[in-house]
């Protein structure tokens, strides 16, 4: 297949993926609102099919462009949604936790929707972006952001469960607060570990490309802010008296910082990261 065909394949698969994610989101809502168990099961299947097609789309784009498909705003956004879907599927499966889909799919849909609004052109890379470290940097960021997305959804559920009374439906579909706290902790752990990889590989790359591994560029600074917020989350969790609620609030703030680092910094603050 030629470059044009691969890219048009990617384009089509992307659209199908987006529709599948949307359908999954709707089914998860029906499941949650109307207590229809099998809706969640079908939603989960659609999510899985969407994820597979999404993966093929990314591979097609990678081959078509002759490089990792993670170097501009569109590519990073679609990869971000892919990473979130991956972590979401793993967490739903691992913790037998379908209701997570109801809270996480909207976030995923927003991100892939954001991707759809970006310019999809494949552009040649400027020399500073031609580095293997960039590959490590961005692929670890995708997993980190995906994991933080999941922790955001779980923490929202925690806060809702904290506020609302324990109806039969709630207890049936949302795990107890203790479990939510632990699952959010597992997601933050994964995210923080990968964010640390992201920052370190980014620093190594910056050192090689710009001669300075840390220059307080706004994107760098905000990745540090995000990192520190999640460090705060971890320490808050350890304190028995603060357990749960305040940690959950910090997990939500952390994800807002993630989104700001990703979109806000490019939009509101100037810096060398402005192309990514």
């Amino acid at each position: 297949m030629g470059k044009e065909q691969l890219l048009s394949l990617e384009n089509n698969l992307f659209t199908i993926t987006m529709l599948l994610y949307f359908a999954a989101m709707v089914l998860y809502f029906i499941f949650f609102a109307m207590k229809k168990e099998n809706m969640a099961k079908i939603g989960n299947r659609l999510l899985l099919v969407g994820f597979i097609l999404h993966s093929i789309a990314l591979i097609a784009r990678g081959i078509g462009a002759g490089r990792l498909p993670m170097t501009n705003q569109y590519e990073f956004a679609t990869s971000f949604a892919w990473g979130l879907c991956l972590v979401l599927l793993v967490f739903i499966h691992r913790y037998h936790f379908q209701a997570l889909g109801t809270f996480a799919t909207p976030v995923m849909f927003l991100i892939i929707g954001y991707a759809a609004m970006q310019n999809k052109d494949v552009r040649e890379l400027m020399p500073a972006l031609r580095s293997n470290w960039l590959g490590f940097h961005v692929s670890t960021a995708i997993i980190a952001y995906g994991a933080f997305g999941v922790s955001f959804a779980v923490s929202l559920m925690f806060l809702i469960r904290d506020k609302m009374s324990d109806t039969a439906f709630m207890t049936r579909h949302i795990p107890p607060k203790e479990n939510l706290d632990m699952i959010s902790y597992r997601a933050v752990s994964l995210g923080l570990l990968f964010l640390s990889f992201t920052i370190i590989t980014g620093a190594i790359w910056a050192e090689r490309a710009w001669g300075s591994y840390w220059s307080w560029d706004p994107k760098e600074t905000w990745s540090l802010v995000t990192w520190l917020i999640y460090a705060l989350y971890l320490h808050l969790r350890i304190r028995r008296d603060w357990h749960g609620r305040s940690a959950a609030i910090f997990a939500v703030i952390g994800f807002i910082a993630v989104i700001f680092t990703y979109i806000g910094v490019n939009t509101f603050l100037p810096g060398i990261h402005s192309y990514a």
Partner: protein
Amino acid sequence: MQFALILLLLLVLACAGGSFITQGQTYEWYAAQYSERAAGAIIALGLDHVYQCWWFVAITAFLCLNLIACNLVRLPSLLKRYRQAGEAERYVHTAGAVSAEEPLDEEQARKVFSDLGFRQITQGEGFLFAARNRAGFWGAWVCHLGILILIIGFGFGQMAKETYMVYGLPGQSKAIGDTSYILTIDDFSIGLREDDTVEQYTSRLTVHNASDGTSQSAEASVNAPADMYGMRFYQNSTGWAARVNITENGEPLQSEVICVGEYVSVEDKPDLVVYLNAFYPDYYLDPGQGPMSLSSKINNPAYLYSVFYMGQMLGMNALLETEELTIDEYTVTFSEPQNFTIIQIKKDPFTFLALIGGLVTLLGLVLAFYIQYSAVWAVEENGKWTMHGTSPKGGVLFRDRFLRAVTGKEQEN
């Protein structure tokens, strides 16, 4: 730890705040951007250089002290916990954080161990015991140590780091700052793709050490710096240079290549100076925006120059390659536009320390999050075994997994 939380929160606020205020500007700049009062406050509080100012350094220093104290204080108890975590005797006489309700027979009990991933089982008088991932106890400790090394490496690097910029054309040699090293640019090339976008910039460099007469050569390109004499050479960027030809009454007087931003003095009238302000490879005079280049290809080269006599500017204009500039008996022309290379040179002996700090932090996080300690034991009473387990960080997830493994066996009964 309360103090640590406050320090972390202050760091978050400082970092976030600093990113919203453009750093490193003057009072006048801030006054024009915000207001005079705001500008005064920004300068007084050091908000124009947040990440280097005293209070930011102080917060970081307190964080380091806190980390040192915390790691020192916790070391003895950690060592003790680490040692005891492998001792069956400490556990088997007590109930676990989670205990099974129904006892199992020995074979089933052993199966629970293996289902939960325990391979090595210690068999004692009336008990079975297994523990794993004791190394995980060290996670937070190692992580804190890593952060400390990282901050120290970064801080020392900021103080000890030396950076220089050298630019030049192939064949030129220049001193590197006030060091005894001389940098020669042997060659400079720009690799273009078919669509004329730049794929790579590459400089071939030789460094000569004037103090011992040795030299080393290497190639530096973007993303692939060269290391020589403990310094790192980066292909930083590029700019334009051109040949200036001066004739006097039609006779050639001088001809030399200068970079944009440099000047020549006329040989027999040194007070007369021609300065090369800019170069436009594809010149176009836009009525609104002034001189500009339509592309980076040399289609219609033009040179923006200014002329000074005894320090006074006589004029400034753009000159095409076909045009001449006449000043009394002198005629000036420009030709042979070419690229010069800009090399950044850095010496930071502490980069490796920061890198080690980063890697140690990563190791700590892996230990803290993915090597979680857990212990399971079974105690015999009348040929039946009661299962217990504990995992300080596994919480309800460990409990659920433990109970699932145990009830699985109970149901088989």
